[in-house]
């Protein structure tokens, strides 16, 4: 062969390699067909007994929020010890764009087998058939609803079907600065304080020069879950609700719901007992630091900040107290494990989820308040008396409506509440706009 011929052969080979690489890169990823139910994908009547080792470990992929990062190695180790045939790989995912990443992974065919979701993130994927029902799994693993904190358990149930196994409950309490109350000569708030009494103490605690406010409401559109947590005591405490009981219509046209909107909005517009920036504030990002700085006297506080608050109080030379939030009910929430329809190892996911919610596992960690009642009672850490008020508050929570179009509905509520806070129309007009827009979403 001549030198030129060698060159030609080399060129053809190079070309073939390039084509092969190009097409293999574009090749469609194998995605399993969505499982109809868990019963089809898992061994029937299997109990929680550890699987037999089968040479190579079966991999279970799971996603948790990034705040679990330090705890993940411990969980992985414990799971490997309990289930020698399995290996769990947990990825800590930042909360920014968490649900978007999850949806992309599910639709892209490479989701985690066990996906942790906030209660508020569950209804919309369920409405789009992206999560597996878990009733059969619960039956096989001898799980019952009463094992879990009711607020977070009910947040995963739609039309009597359960889609989520709760592991975290997140009731909030009303934390107050006793020193500021004493200075103002105002009695401390008490459990489920009626809304009108709460407003009266707010007026007494607020200083007209803007240096001290009584309370903080969260209005940020970037964090709608916070807005709803802030708004729920007002609407439920007024006897109103978001949707009718059968979820077929908006309930914002009822006098009670309108009163709830009016109460919440007027804390800002009329009584001015909350800080000026509340329209764009989130609870943890903005209001909790203001409470630590003694700029506001009361704030909604979840369990993850309670010890930090006590430390700040000690450093700042003030005292804090806690009670169940004002009104009748606050928003029940938390996190649960779900299984995406495109998960590759449903059986492994079930085994891991069953392991994770065991009281001796979920009760051992100190990251989040366990949603498993036995873990709350038996864990040395979580049975600390500081948390008693949270367990009490848990029994005064209700869940948001489980509607497949909830994220759209929630966006309308937040938007219109912001408009009303801005004084763009009265609270009554805002409630009317919410009613019309929500009905259009539900009807459409």
């Amino acid at each position: 062969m001549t030198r030129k011929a060698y060159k030609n052969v080399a060129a053809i080979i190079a070309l073939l390699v390039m084509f092969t690489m190009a097409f293999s890169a574009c090749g469609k990823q194998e995605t399993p067909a969505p499982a109809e139910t868990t019963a089809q994908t898992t061994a029937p009547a299997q109990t929680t007994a550890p699987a037999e080792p089968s040479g190579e470990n079966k991999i279970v992929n799971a996603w948790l929020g990034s705040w679990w990062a330090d705890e993940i190695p411990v969980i992985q180790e414990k799971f490997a010890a309990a289930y020698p045939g399995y290996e769990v790989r947990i990825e800590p995912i930042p909360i920014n764009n968490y649900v978007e990443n999850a949806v992309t992974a599910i639709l892209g065919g490479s989701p985690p087998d066990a996906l942790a979701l906030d209660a508020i993130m569950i209804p919309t994927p369920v409405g789009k058939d992206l999560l597996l029902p878990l009733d059969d799994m619960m039956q096989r693993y001898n799980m019952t609803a009463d094992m879990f904190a009711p607020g977070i358990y009910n947040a995963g149930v739609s039309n009597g079907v359960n889609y989520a196994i709760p592991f975290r409950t997140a009731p909030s309490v009303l934390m107050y600065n006793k020193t500021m109350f004493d200075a103002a000569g105002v009695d401390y708030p008490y459990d489920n304080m009626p809304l009108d009494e709460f407003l009266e103490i707010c007026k007494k605690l607020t200083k007209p020069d803007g240096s001290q406010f009584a309370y903080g409401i969260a209005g940020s559109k970037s964090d709608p879950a916070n807005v709803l947590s802030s708004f729920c005591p007002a609407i439920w405490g007024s006897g109103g609700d978001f949707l009718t009981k059968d979820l077929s219509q908006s309930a914002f046209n009822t006098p009670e719901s309108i009163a709830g909107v009016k109460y919440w909005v007027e804390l800002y517009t009329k009584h001015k007992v909350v800080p000026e920036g509340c329209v764009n504030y989130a609870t943890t990002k903005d209001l909790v630091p203001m409470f630590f700085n003694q700029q506001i006297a009361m704030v909604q506080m979840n369990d993850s900040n309670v010890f930090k608050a006590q430390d700040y109080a000690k450093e700042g030379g003030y005292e804090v107290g806690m009670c169940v939030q004002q009104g009748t009910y606050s928003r029940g929430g938390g996190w649960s494990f779900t299984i995406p329809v495109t998960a590759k190892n449903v059986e492994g996911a079930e085994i891991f989820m069953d392991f994770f919610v065991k009281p001796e596992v979920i009760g051992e960690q100190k990251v989040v308040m366990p949603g498993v009642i036995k873990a709350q009672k038996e864990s040395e850490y979580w049975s600390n008396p500081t948390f008693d008020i949270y367990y009490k508050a848990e029994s005064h929570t209700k869940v948001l409506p489980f509607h497949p179009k909830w994220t759209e509905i929630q966006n309308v509520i937040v938007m219109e509440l912001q408009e009303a806070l801005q004084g763009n129309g009265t609270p009554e007009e805002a409630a009317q706009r919410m009613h019309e827009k929500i009905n259009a979403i539900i009807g459409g």
Partner: protein
Amino acid sequence: MRILNKGRRRTLTAFVFVLPCVILLLLMMVYPTLQVVQFSFSRLKLPKFDATFVGLQNFKQIFSNSDFIQIIINTFIWTGVSLLLRFIVGFIGALVAETGLRWMNSFRTLTLLPWMVPSIVAANTWRWIFNADNGLLNTLIRYINPSLGQNWLGSTQLALPSVIIAYSWAGFPFIMLMLLAAMQGIPKDYYEAARIDGAGSLRLFRHITLPSLKNIILILTIMEVISGFNSFDIIFTMTGGGPGIASEIFGLFIYRTAFSNLNFAGSSAASLILIIAAVILIAIYALLGSKKRMKGGAY
């Protein structure tokens, strides 16, 4: 027998080698666009994206949204004003950096910082600066006069301008860098000759610098318009589009429709509208530019 002559053979060889890249480009750019077109006229069933043709239904839904007009207006304000601000600050920065004075290397490095900061960090920093109760800006303003403090991100009138400032701050170094690179390519002889003829600094800028930068300005304008239409991260973190819809822009609307509401057909229809709008704008701009070029003027 040789069918092709040497020249054609060489062209064919080159073409065959380029072909894999062309195919890749088509798959990565054209296919998704075609899919957006298909989805925007369909109803989609997840998770497999099974599409059923529904005609213009998705577009009807978008246009019947009572907030749609305001979102479009916000998008044009967002894109136009941030483009202008970025160009003004970028131009000033480039002219200063081009002076060759002492410390200019440090100046260049410093001015690049906003561009290097991740957008989420920039957004949170500006969110803190604009915080109504404890923010840096209001603290400074209230030091001068307590009644001048503003609810920057919580007011319908101020939210969009505030976020535009943050967005312009994050993007001006790119403009500056590109303009600076182009300025350094202008032959110094032009300036010397003009100076000998008695031209002042303003005339030098008007008749030499600006015309020499017209191509890069055109490219940057197109890139910035597209980036402005698509952007959502800074606005999402700072205001979430609020209060109400005061700072809601089209990119955010598309993102929310797709990933919050899981309405991928609706978001595809909105994306198609955006693509068409961007293409029309760019075509108009390019047309105006070519007309001026034919007349021999700068633009």
